């Protein structure tokens, strides 16, 4: 399955782009699969991934959340409001 993940702030800078498109091999991929694939696809993101969360359709989700092809996926990490 091909998915596109939005990136923001320092993570977009590290990856050099605001979206990353990846292919997930698992038949019913989860956000955990996405986390692993992201580290491979964009090694500069790897150090910040363990402390990052995923949002699916604008809601935080756990790593066992299944991904559908029409989900909006976002990596939420290195945040620093206030």
């Amino acid at each position: 399955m091909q998915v596109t993940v939005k990136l923001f702030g320092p993570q977009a800078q590290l990856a050099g782009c605001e979206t990353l498109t990846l292919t997930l091999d698992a038949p019913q991929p989860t956000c955990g699969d996405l986390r692993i694939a992201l580290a491979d696809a964009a090694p500069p993101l790897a150090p910040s991934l363990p402390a990052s969360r995923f949002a699916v359709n604008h809601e935080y989700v756990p790593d066992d959340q299944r991904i559908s092809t029409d989900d909006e996926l976002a990596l939420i990490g290195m945040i620093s409001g206030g």
Partner: protein
Amino acid sequence: MQVDVELHPGPLPPAPPWHIDTAGAAIRFEGVVRPTEQGQPLVALDYQQYPPMTERELRRLAEQIAQQHGLLGLRVAHSHGRVPVGKVSFRLDVASKHRAEGLAAMDAFINRLKREVPLWKLPVYATASAPTSAPTHPEGATP
């Protein structure tokens, strides 16, 4: 209980005091962009949001904190986009019956804001060689 949330483009303009009837304590926190970031001179911070998730999470947090701490009101405003050094990018107003719960709420809110609300900042350095730089004028255009 009154809860108000705003994401505002650019620096937050000055706001009049916010008092709520029956509140004995009105506490305001303002975050100001500091002139250096990790020792390097800064001209601004660029704040990025992820609409509409950012505002939604900010509101969720505001309502939870207001309820948990028994506040009479909580009002929060956060900038998005560019905020120059010395300008206000974040304002939190807390109104409570007594002081203790107001101060505790303020501390809890800011701690959770920094962990839960999708907001990012990128430094805009004065020097061109720095990792991020402001959109500059065409070369040689100005003094």
